[in-house]
């Protein structure tokens, strides 16, 4: 029996692989990040406190949690927000994707591509790569800080609007930095070497939102580029269960199929809507042809370019039609009883919040479905396939490859690998 730690992912978890006489007996992924019971913590709280509480589910995805909770509560309360509020929230979400993808791709995943133990090692050989990663991450954080009020656990998105707007000069400087980084990011990422393991982890089913444009909000749920499902009908096709000792629930499509969510799923479902540099880079990479889990890393690269283009575009649109003021906009409304649901694309994939409120605006119950939970069964399936394959090829040291595979999903958990040899 051997034990090793998977580093360079978020949270606590463990892969348990049992091998007998060179044959795979079983493989299991346990998420050991202890339960924090957020769905219960919010019961009996006023709707206005919910976004502040649920953003604490995850620091990296805090902007996504905050915004989607606000949207679900607005759905319950029948609130429509003006376009500039929507644009401002979208800008914030793009900041979140930039920070999350840059952290994952440059600092956690790319060291594998260059056979380095960590970004610190990588920075000795390829300092320009690590510097660029930090600069992209820094831009993402600057956006979240300027628009949201803080890089983590943002402040400004509130039910009914945004409590404050950033200074116009700050927005212009953000757009400027995005334009500067565009070309540099493309030139750097186009030369990333490929991973040998790529053909070993084929994606069979993928799920993401899909609307008119390539976006992180709006639209329906799209399954495998073909079947549409309205967000409110999510639980008709997707069912979850929690299996001990894992604290995360497994979700299956139609009770049997595992599926992937995240950057790759979004790109597979919406590639025709990717324009500009992001669009051409996507075609160059051929990632939609290969459909490998490992391509999720490169799908994040495509989305980094997409976000950089989009950030300039949103800023321009925001500043055009408005006598700029840093006062926030919060629409008038009266609390009422109701149920609401909203889904967005968090950096790591589909994220869904549902709430019901009593007539004074207190929460009766809530339900939160996170991308890492959605990916869990698919992680196990691809791990099983790949471990089986590697064993048949006579590979003895499974851990590094399995680690890389888990990392490609960009899970929100740190994982430790337990290899059991019987």
């Amino acid at each position, binding site marked *: 029996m051997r034990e090793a730690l998977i580093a360079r992912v978020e949270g606590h978890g463990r892969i348990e692989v049992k091998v007998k006489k060179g044959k795979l007996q079983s493989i299991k992924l346990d998420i050991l990040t202890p339960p*924090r019971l957020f769905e219960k913590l919010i019961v009996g709280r006023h709707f206005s406190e919910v976004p502040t509480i649920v953003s604490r589910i995850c620091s990296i995805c805090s902007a996504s949690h905050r915004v989607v909770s606000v949207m679900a509560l607005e759905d319950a309360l029948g609130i429509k927000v003006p376009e500039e509020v929507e644009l401002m929230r979208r800008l914030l979400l793009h900041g979140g994707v930039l920070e999350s993808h840059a952290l994952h791709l440059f600092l956690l995943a790319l060291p594998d591509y260059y056979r380095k133990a960590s970004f610190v090692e990588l920075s000795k050989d390829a300092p320009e790569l690590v510097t660029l990663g930090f600069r992209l991450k820094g831009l993402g954080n600057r956006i979240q800080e300027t628009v949201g009020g803080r890089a983590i656990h943002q402040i400004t998105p509130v039910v009914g609007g945004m409590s404050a707007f950033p200074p116009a000069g700050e927005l212009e400087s953000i757009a400027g930095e995005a334009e500067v980084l565009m070309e540099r990011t493309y030139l750097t990422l186009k030369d990333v070497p490929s991973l040998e393991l790529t053909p070993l982890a084929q994606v069979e089913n993928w799920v993401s939102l899909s609307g008119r444009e390539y976006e992180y909000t709006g639209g329906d749920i799209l399954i495998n580029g073909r079947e549409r499902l309205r967000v409110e009908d999510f639980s008709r096709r997707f069912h979850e269960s929690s299996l001990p000792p894992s604290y995360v629930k497994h979700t299956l499509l139609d009770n049997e199929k595992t599926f992937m969510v995240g950057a790759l799923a979004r790109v597979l479902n919406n590639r025709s809507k990717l324009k500009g540099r992001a669009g051409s880079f996507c075609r160059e990479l051929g990632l939609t042809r290969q459909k490998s889990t490992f391509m999720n890393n490169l799908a994040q690269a495509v989305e980094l370019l997409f976000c950089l283009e989009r950030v300039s575009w949103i800023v321009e649109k925001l500043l055009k039609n408005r006598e700029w003021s840093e006062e926030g906009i919060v629409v008038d409304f009266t609390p009422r009883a109701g149920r609401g649901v909203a889904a967005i694309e968090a950096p790591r994939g589909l994220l869904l919040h549902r709430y019901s409120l009593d007539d004074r605006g207190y929460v009766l119950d809530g339900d939160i479905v996170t991308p890492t939970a959605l990916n869990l069964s698919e992680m196990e399936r691809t791990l099983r396939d790949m471990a089986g394959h590697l064993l048949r090829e006579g590979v003895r040291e499974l851990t590094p490859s399995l680690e890389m595979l888990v990392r490609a999903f960009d899970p929100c958990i740190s994982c430790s690998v337990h290899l059991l040899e019987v």
Partner: protein
Amino acid sequence: MREKKKTKVGFYSLTSCSGDILEITNMEEDLLKLFEIVDVVDLNVAMASTGVRPEIAFVEGAITQPEEARFLRKLRKEVKYLVAMGSCACTGGVIARGPKQRRAWLRDVYPESWEEFRSGFPRPLRDVIQVDLEIPGCPIERRYFLHCIAYLLKGVLPEVPNYPVCMECKMKGNECLLRYRGMPCLGPITRAGCGARQPSRGRPCDGCFGPYADANLDSLVEIFRGLGLSEREIKNRLDLFWERRR
């Protein structure tokens, strides 16, 4: 002159959202400088553990599992300074709610498996071990973290600001939300250090830094009653980050 040996520093995460360690990685390129100044022996999100004992340990998150308490006791014996980072580690944080309902909640959320969980009510580090320094905030502020580590490397414990958020808010020239807009702001009783982030953006302070030493909770509660807040509303206001302090 011989190069001085670098201090070994480890970062550890208990039950948390990982936000305090993420805030440290938000130093961006300066993170590489931190790696030059100190010898980082553990930072799971960025590298595999070196297995080397740290001299200074920074711990985020609350304690909910027996293994976490055991880990901390062991860590305490090894290190010179043990620092609690963020409100989860300092007070139990936003998740330390509903001590009595906890079993029932677990059963509701995980009907198939709750009996196998050994998950307890979130406790702050100082409930289990002696803590040398508490860095407040949800999350902590990276600048204040740097201030603290600079002190600790010199062998001195830094002081935490002992005045309320209101001071920072006034220095920024903000219009007071409590006074002029009747919003239930916790700035008057909350420790400064965030630069009045929320009041500067149209939102009353939620109190994530916890109380400063001379905080007068009762008089603020009186003011809230005067604003027409119900007892339930006042309780909810205070127990976002405050309940365990009282």
